[in-house]
């Protein structure tokens, strides 16, 4: 199976889907699912292929190369699987909307270009696919028009800044080494001075930090997530944003190399240490902003910014545990955030686009499967033991503590505790409490929406109880970067400074839960009552909303809101306005009247004559 064929199928499939849509909706949808599933199968077949390179095109005399290794297999698998699930989820959600052909084209295009990024073996094709991804994402974010266009513009402007930074880096590499093949670069770069390496890392980091929404370059993300169509949110938050993570891994550990990347700078001002601190800030501040959100998608968006911080901290700390934690967290985060966005999508689909947390409530009785999905999703997000998020966070914490970075560990841990607050708010406002009267007739989500949710819920538990399976793969990635291998067993990690054994925890929780359940069974059976039959000091409860949701963490809001203005965004907007007014001022010169232009010429000539006379040059 050659990689060219894979990419041809990915891109060709997108275009054929668009054309089929002109004939029939059903054929188009079937074909889109078929294409995305066949991509999953094809990539799964690539497992274990390492280092095969193939030149597929020449561009201005530069060979464009595809290659595969464990890192790209891992990311490609995640991209294609989550892409396929998103396509399946879209089937019902996008039904009866306008421009669906275009939607499917762009969705498959984004997936294909992400695969292109992952498999490209040289920087010029990396850059081309990167740009394709940015532009098709922009078109999808702006799909809904209205405020979505502004969000999309914000995204694309920041993206372009990032791409330009990357282009500078690529060109400087080409000027120095006259090749853009990653493998060759990795060998040649050993002779570079540390100053040049630092320049390279910073210039590439700008591009990847914008994509990964690292503070202070995160400002595009909340608006874009909130306005994008919900099924696309899965792809956007799960993998597309994490292409930044792939980029960081690529530049730090593949091209520059672990030993060189981890020794740049001195003392506290090492490059990777500063990157880790940026990651820590990215964990804490967005977490607290997320607590303030009342919009389900904005809440998840800020949470996604925060979780991105864990990955950066993990890979920036530069140990085998941290690296594995960071990469594993990328996968885990993709799984649960896609699941949570799908749950929001299901709720939106059934309630007619409602995503304001304060006007929902009590959906557990109407949409039980969606509730279970959300519960597992937030468990993963918080990192409750036996869900996947726990294992990756455990790895990150452990390495931070043992390497002597307690303040970084503190930032990571406090992020988790803040995370509980918004996670509970999310699940409580949507699913618990009293069901408003107007949603009495809400149906279960349709099967095509439930199927991806069930698969992802299963994945959360599977990776949580048997973390060894993905960790083995991640371990080979780590060793290929030159790190020491971890002692991974199928149940967890064994080492002398603290072991993790998930099966023990699982068994203990299972047995103890059964005991607790039996204890509840000792007493007489409880009578089920309606939601109106709750304690209200003897008063009867009104039928409609009687449920405490607005300003849920009010005392905390009052304390933290003054400190949590998004001043970075405000600064950027001010900067943009300043540029705009500067341009406006310049434009005022060009009035369009011939008389004015004649006046400019005459004045200019007069100035010249004046200068000539005054200084008699």
């Amino acid at each position, binding site marked *: 199976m050659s990689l060219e064929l894979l990419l041809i199928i990915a891109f060709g499939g997108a275009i054929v889907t668009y054309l089929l849509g002109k004939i029939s909706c059903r054929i188009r949808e079937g074909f889109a699912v078929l294409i995305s599933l066949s991509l999953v199968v094809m990539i799964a077949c690539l497992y274990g292929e390492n280092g095969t390179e193939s030149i597929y095109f020449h561009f201005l005399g530069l060979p464009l190369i595809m290659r595969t290794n464990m890192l790209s297999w891992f990311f490609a698998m995640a991209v294609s699987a989550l892409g396929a699930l998103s396509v399946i989820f879209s089937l019902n959600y996008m039904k009866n909307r306008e421009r669906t052909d275009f939607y499917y084209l762009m969705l498959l295009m984004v997936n294909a270009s992400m695969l292109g990024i992952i498999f490209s073996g040289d920087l010029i094709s990396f850059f081309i696919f990167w740009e394709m991804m940015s532009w098709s994402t922009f078109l999808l974010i702006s799909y809904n028009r209205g405020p979505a266009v502004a969000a999309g513009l914000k995204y694309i402007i920041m993206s372009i800044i990032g791409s330009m930074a990357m282009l500078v880096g690529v060109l400087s590499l080409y000027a120095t080494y006259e090749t853009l093949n990653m493998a060759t670069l990795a060998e040649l770069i050993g002779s570079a001075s540390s100053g040049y390496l630092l320049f390279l890392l910073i210039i590439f980091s700008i591009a990847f930090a914008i994509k990964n929404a690292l503070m202070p370059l995160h400002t595009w993300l909340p608006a874009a997530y909130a306005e994008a169509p919900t099924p696309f949110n899965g792809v956007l938050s799960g993998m597309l944003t994490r292409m930044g993570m792939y980029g960081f891994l690529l530049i730090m550990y593949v091209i520059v190399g672990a030993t060189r990347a981890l020794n740049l700078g001195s003392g506290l001002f090492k490059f990777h240490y500063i990157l880790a601190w940026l990651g820590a800030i990215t964990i804490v501040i967005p977490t607290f902003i997320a607590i303030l959100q009342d919009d389900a998608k904005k809440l998840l968006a800020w949470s996604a910014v925060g979780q991105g911080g864990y990955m950066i901290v993990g890979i920036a700390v530069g140990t085998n545990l941290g690296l594995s934690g960071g990469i594993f967290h990328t996968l885990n985060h993709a799984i649960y955030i896609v699941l949570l966005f799908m749950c929001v999508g299901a709720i939106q689909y059934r309630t007619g686009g409602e995503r304001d947390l304060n006007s929902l409530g009590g959906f557990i009785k109407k949409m039980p499967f969606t509730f279970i999905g959300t519960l597992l999703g937030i468990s993963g997000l918080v990192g409750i033991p036996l869900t996947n998020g726990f294992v990756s966070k455990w790895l990150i914490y452990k390495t931070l503590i043992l390497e002597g970075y307690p303040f970084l560990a503190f930032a990571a841990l406090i992020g988790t505790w803040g995370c509980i607050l918004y996670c509970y708010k999310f699940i409580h406002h949507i699913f618990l409490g009293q069901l408003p009267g107007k949603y009495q007739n809400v149906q279960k989500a349709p099967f095509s929406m439930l199927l991806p949710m069930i698969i992802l819920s299963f994945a959360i538990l599977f990776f949580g109880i048997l973390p060894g399976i993905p960790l083995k793969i991640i371990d080979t990635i780590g060793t290929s970067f030159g790190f020491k291998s971890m002692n991974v067993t199928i149940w967890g990690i064994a080492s002398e400074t603290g072991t993790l054994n998930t099966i023990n925890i699982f068994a203990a929780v299972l047995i103890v839960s059964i005991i607790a359940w039996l204890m509840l069974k000792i007493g007489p059976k409880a009578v089920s009552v*309606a939601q*109106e*039959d709750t*304690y209200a000091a*003897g*008063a*009867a409860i009104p039928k409609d909303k009687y449920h405490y949701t607005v300003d849920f963490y009010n005392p905390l809001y009052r304390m933290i809101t003054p400190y949590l203005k998004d001043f970075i965004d405000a600064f950027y907007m001010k900067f943009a306005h300043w540029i705009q007014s500067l341009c406006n001022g310049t434009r005022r010169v060009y009035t369009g009247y011939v008389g004015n232009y004649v006046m400019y010429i005459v004045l200019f000539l007069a100035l010249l004559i004046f200068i000539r006379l005054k200084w008699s040059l």
Partner: protein
Amino acid sequence: MDRNQLIKWLKAPAKMGHKYSLHAVYFCTGCGIIEVPPSITARWDAERFGVLPVATPRQANLFLITGYVSVKTLRAIIRTYEQMPEPKYSVGFGSCPINGGMYWDSYNTIKHLDKYIPIDGWIAGCMPRPEAIFVAVTHLWTLIDKDMADGYKRYRDHYQAYRANQEHALGKLEWPPLFSNETKS
């Protein structure tokens, strides 16, 4: 704990539990509640009998109706009584719930509370002293022992009649019947 008690505990732990752990609803129905603070605080200390005020009817099994019952309060009393888990005991405190007391000719007061919810025992007097609460509690213990504190069973058996009385006094009730027809046995 003497031997007799121990045998009783082994024979019927549930019944003994009900006896010695009477948690009262913290619900001030009338002026008689003024006698409750001294009885639960340092002067008389009801906690040594296991009597403890709790916050919600869900956690309680003893309902003290302390003083006169206006029509408006009756609504809350019924609601609270229905929300208490079974077995539950209710005690009328003072002469007003018994027969209206000094409000016997008021247009807005309920005269006979036991027409609306079942009462397991009365404490007469206006006001009864806090000691009377303890007399009532010890009396309630003997009633529980002899299975005579069966107000909640009466309520279940004659629910239709109670409900009819309640609707007669209050008009239409906002909540559905506690027991449907077929549970009447």
